[in-house]
């Protein structure tokens, strides 16, 4: 895009050619109201709110009214926003929208952060002239996430455009016509799309609101906000945590140009309920005479000192704990006694993913860059379940061909409806090769159902097809040879090909194959990208720290070398079989669990210490693409709930300093100290310190406020404790005042944006004030920092790539056993979100997925390590013979894949056996 300049009401404003005038006006700081336009959804010109007057040249005094969102910036554009007729028209638009609106702002949960309110004030419409009756609608029950109040609808069509066109949902639509249009479902029922929660933010009024939040509702201005990062998968979406009365109330999207941008998945938005769940641990618990009893903090620490004095302490970290927590444990026990908390298989897969991403010669695309990949190969990973937001990005990638058609037709890419019309029959460049159907199949050019090993073989064959130097695959079926050639051809022809895989099926060969393809492509196309899915929010951070797998801990324990295990935020029962857990518990004298949630492992512990959840402390997570990101404290829980590293430090203070691996540990004052120490110990993690400004950051000499100026009186906000004015709680770890005092503004560092508000914009759409360019970078710079990068090696040219050569043998169905693969679920497979009531309500009962031909009775028995499981049966279209799908962690808690198991048929009732 080239720079140009437009004249808005006599003022010359620099802008870019090719964008639309609405965007240009907003970027120029003008407050031009709009509804149907959305930066991620483009323009359709439905609401007619953004009317301005455009003049054809300096001599044109008449001009004509146009919709800014539908008009491209061109050289020497002259427009007027203040034009009386345009103003009048814009006020009329609001007046029309309000004809049937219930005027229920006082009881509406959108109130105070409502785009319609903002726009109403902005246009100046304030007196009702319509004197007839309003039409009313019936509302629907849309399930546990989203509330529906159709009477507030202004028919901007954003909801259906997002839900259907953007997110691929098909159970929300528009019904009827004229002023009777109705946005909802054919019948009451749960919205099925994985991104339904975004309706809450996409809808500019109160039609769709956050249902779990509704139960603990507070006005936006009465909540504290903190920039946060989602902990429910490894993608690392940025969020805003809102809190009041020291409870977490809701999670909103936080814009990050490179990552999630405007959208979150439902697991991320609604998974936070674990923080307030009854399963939360709030006090230290000590096992005395076989009973777990609450004890004061000092008592717990003394008890630990006694335990540690008896013998060796080994630390088990967790891929779902923050870097600082993991590192503090490392500092306590040292590398020889530090375990990553993963089984060898998990551990090696993650390390492999890290190594491959680090080593392969192609690009490391951001999620946003993946949206513009023009050919995508998904190799054996159901991304929509393991990394949902990434799946949404891949869904957008299939639009590339339609963008090129639009370019040819000189239709700007943001002309959403027009581009979709032109693209009606544009081919997709997405190939999905997975064992079972995925949500992306509907937009794929081709799909293939095969066993992970066979998919890996196909992947190696594709790599060989692209680069003959890559090893060849023998005995491929003729159809597969052709498919490999087709896919190779598409990838080679693409300007920005992308290969996505991951460790869902625990198959290193899949990731190797994916990396080989990218390496082969990168010889001619350095933009060829690789993306690998990891299981947990800090899997990558932990991989970069290293450590031993759980199997090694088991061995040491069996050898009697371990006296005390300190386990941070890890429920080992999800990783180890019940027998292994029992053996481990028996072999060590004491187990100390530092966690926020009462997991089954806590039952086995001598000491349980209540740790702060993500919303209650600050810390750093490294996403699967190697992006270190900081989350900040929104809630100030009563002591002794504290950050993981503070607990470890507290434990360390009770020990003889000579026992500490890193004696400095006891002297750390704040998060910055921890990060500084980590930078020394792990130079590769050093940049993580810069993921966000440190605690000493000041803007205009002040800390940043995390409440709006409008917050109701401080006495009120703490009245549940005491009506007397109290000093607001503070944290030494963050540059936030945690109150309404302090600096705040669109230019503050993006990593510290605790909410969007910039008068007269009070809704989430105030975001446009915080961006340099709409949909582009934040004014306050980047949020987070990439730890994996190409820069160093790039200058030296692509490094030689050693292709993996261990190509798996083909899968063959066995007569007496089946291969059990995880049926990873958006709701149900992830540990923490399953404590969130709304997510629990969305998790369907476990069932066994079988190849269609095998589902001959309603129930079957699956024999796993931990015993026999009777499960209802569901046929899975296309699932290869000899493979069954079992919901991860829902049947057997610890479940290592792939697993060969015995399956037994139960005759249906009334069936003769």
């Amino acid at each position, binding site marked *: 895009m080239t720079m140009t300049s437009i004249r808005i009401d006599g003022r010359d404003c620099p802008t870019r050619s090719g964008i639309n005038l609405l965007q240009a006006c907003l970027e120029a700081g003008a407050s031009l109201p709009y509804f149907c336009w959305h930066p991620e959804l483009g323009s359709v010109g439905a609401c007619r709110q953004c009317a301005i007057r455009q003049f054809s040249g300096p001599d044109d005094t008449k001009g004509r009214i146009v919709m800014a969102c539908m008009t491209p910036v061109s050289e020497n554009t002259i427009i007027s926003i203040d034009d009386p007729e345009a103003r009048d028209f814009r006020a009329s638009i609001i007046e029309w929208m309000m004809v049937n609106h219930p005027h229920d702002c006082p009881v509406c949960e959108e109130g105070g952060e409502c785009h319609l309110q903002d726009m109403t004030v902005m246009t100046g419409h304030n007196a009702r002239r319509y004197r007839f009756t309003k039409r009313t609608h019936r509302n629907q029950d849309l399930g546990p996430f989203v509330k529906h109040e159709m009477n507030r609808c202004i028919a901007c069509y954003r909801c259906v455009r997002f839900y*259907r066109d953007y997110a691929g949902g098909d159970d929300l639509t528009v019904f*009827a016509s004229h002023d009777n249009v109705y946005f909802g479902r*054919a019948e009451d029922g749960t919205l099925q799309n994985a991104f339904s929660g975004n309706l809450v933010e996409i809808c500019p009024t109160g039609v769709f609101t956050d249902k779990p939040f509704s139960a603990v509702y507070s006005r936006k201005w009465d909540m504290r906000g903190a920039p946060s990062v989602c902990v429910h998968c490894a993608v690392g979406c940025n969020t805003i945590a809102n809190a009041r009365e020291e409870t977490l109330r809701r999670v909103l999207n936080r814009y990050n140009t490179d990552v999630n941008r405007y959208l979150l998945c439902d697991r991320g938005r609604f998974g936070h309920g674990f923080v307030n769940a009854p399963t939360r641990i709030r006090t230290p618990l000590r096992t005395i005479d076989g009973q777990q009893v609450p004890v004061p903090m000092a008592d717990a620490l003394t008890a630990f000192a006694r335990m540690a004095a008896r013998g060796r302490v080994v630390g088990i970290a967790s891929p779902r704990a923050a870097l600082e927590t993991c590192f503090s444990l490392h500092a306590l026990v040292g590398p020889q006694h530090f375990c990553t908390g993963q089984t060898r298989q998990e551990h090696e897969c993650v390390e492999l993913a890290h190594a491959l991403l680090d080593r392969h010669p192609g690009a490391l695309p951001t999620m946003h860059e993946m949206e513009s990949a023009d050919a995508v190969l998904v190799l054996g990973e159901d991304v929509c379940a393991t990394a949902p937001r990434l799946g949404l990005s891949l869904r957008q990638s299939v639009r590339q061909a339609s963008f090129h058609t639009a370019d040819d037709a000189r239709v700007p890419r943001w002309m959403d409806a027009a581009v979709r019309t032109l693209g009606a029959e544009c081919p997709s460049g997405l190939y999905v090769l997975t064992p079972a159907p995925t949500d992306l199949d509907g937009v794929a050019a081709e799909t293939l159902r095969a066993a992970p090993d066979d998919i890996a073989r196909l992947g190696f064959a594709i790599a060989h097809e692209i680069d003959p130097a890559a090893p060849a695959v023998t005995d491929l079926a003729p159809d597969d040879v052709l498919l490999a050639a087709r896919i190779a051809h598409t990838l080679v022809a693409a300007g920005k090909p992308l290969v996505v895989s991951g460790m869902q099926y625990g198959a290193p060969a899949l990731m190797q194959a994916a990396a080989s393809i990218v390496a082969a492509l990168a010889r001619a196309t350095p933009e060829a990208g690789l993306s690998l899915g990891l299981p947990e929010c800090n899997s990558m951070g932990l991989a970069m720290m290293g450590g031993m797998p759980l199997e090694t801990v088991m061995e040491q324990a069996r050898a009697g070398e371990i006296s005390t295990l300190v386990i941070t935020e890890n429920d080992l029962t999800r990783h180890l079989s019940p027998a292994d857990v029992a053996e481990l518990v028996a072999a060590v004298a004491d187990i100390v669990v530092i966690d926020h949630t009462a997991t089954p492992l806590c039952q086995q512990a001598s000491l349980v210490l209540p740790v702060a959840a993500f919303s209650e402390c600050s810390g750093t997570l490294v996403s699967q693409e190697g992006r270190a990101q900081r989350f900040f404290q929104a809630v100030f829980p009563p002591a002794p709930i504290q950050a993981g590293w503070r607990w470890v430090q507290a434990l360390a203070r009770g020990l003889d300093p000579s026992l500490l691996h890193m004696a400095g540990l006891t002297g750390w004052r704040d998060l910055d100290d921890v990060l500084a120490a980590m930078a020394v110990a792990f130079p590769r993690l050093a940049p993580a310190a810069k993921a966000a400004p440190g605690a000493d950051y000041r803007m205009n000499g002040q800390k940043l406020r995390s409440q709006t100026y409008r917050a109701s009186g401080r006495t009120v906000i703490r009245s549940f404790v005491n009506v007397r004015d109290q000093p607001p709680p503070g944290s030494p770890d963050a540059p936030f005042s945690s109150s309404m005092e302090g600096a705040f503004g669109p230019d503050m560092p993006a990593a510290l944006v605790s909410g969007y508000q910039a008068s007269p914009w009070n809704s989430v759409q105030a975001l446009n004030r915080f961006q340099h360019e709409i949909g582009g970078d934040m004014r306050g710079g980047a949020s987070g920092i990439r730890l994996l990068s190409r820069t160093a090696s790039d200058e030296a040219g692509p490094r030689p790539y050693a292709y993996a050569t261990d190509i798996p043998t083909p899968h063959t169905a066995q007569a007496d056993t089946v291969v059990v693969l995880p049926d990873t679920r958006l709701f149900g497979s992830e540990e923490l979100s399953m404590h969130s009531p709304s997510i629990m309500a969305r998790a369907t009962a476990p069932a066994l997925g079988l190849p269609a031909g095998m589902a001959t009775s309603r129930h079957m028995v699956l024999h796993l390590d931990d015993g026999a499981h009777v499960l209802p049966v569901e046929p899975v279209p296309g699932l290869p013979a000899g493979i069954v799908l079992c919901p991860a962690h829902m049947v057997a808690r610890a479940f290592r894949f792939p697993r060969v198991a015995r399956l037994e048929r139960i005759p249906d009732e009334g069936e003769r056996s």
Partner: protein
Amino acid sequence: MLTAEAPLPAPVRAEILALAAREPHPRGAGVAALRLVQARFGWVSTAHLREVAGLLGMSADDLDGIATYFNLLFRRPVGRHVIMLCDSVSCWIMGRGPLCAHLCRTLGIKPGETTADNAITLLPTVCIGHCDHAPAMLVDDTLHGDVDTATLDRLIDTLRDTP
């Protein structure tokens, strides 16, 4: 007997699939398929709508968004006969108002309703292109022009008697 709840008869399903097959995308046959069902059953029940949606590879919600958009697709049962009395301008000038009142009185229903004996549904319709013979109406598929109360009365009698 064919009911709106029973699955669609095989020939109807086959015809819908044939309609879908000639479109670049099966959804192009949506309106045609719904009209086909309506021609057979008088209206489009939810059960049938779902079935048609399945045949066209669409969600029921999606197809219902279309069904409820168009005036001539009925999502509620109608009587054995449907009188669609034009309510547009030429017919209005030529006296459709009093005629409508007469019909309502005679049938004992309001526009949009069906007589108790399920014989007749009365609906308003936009201009049916018979303005030179206004007031005009469609009775089922047949166009009637220059309608007056006398012709209406005769017509109602015959409709009540025909199945």
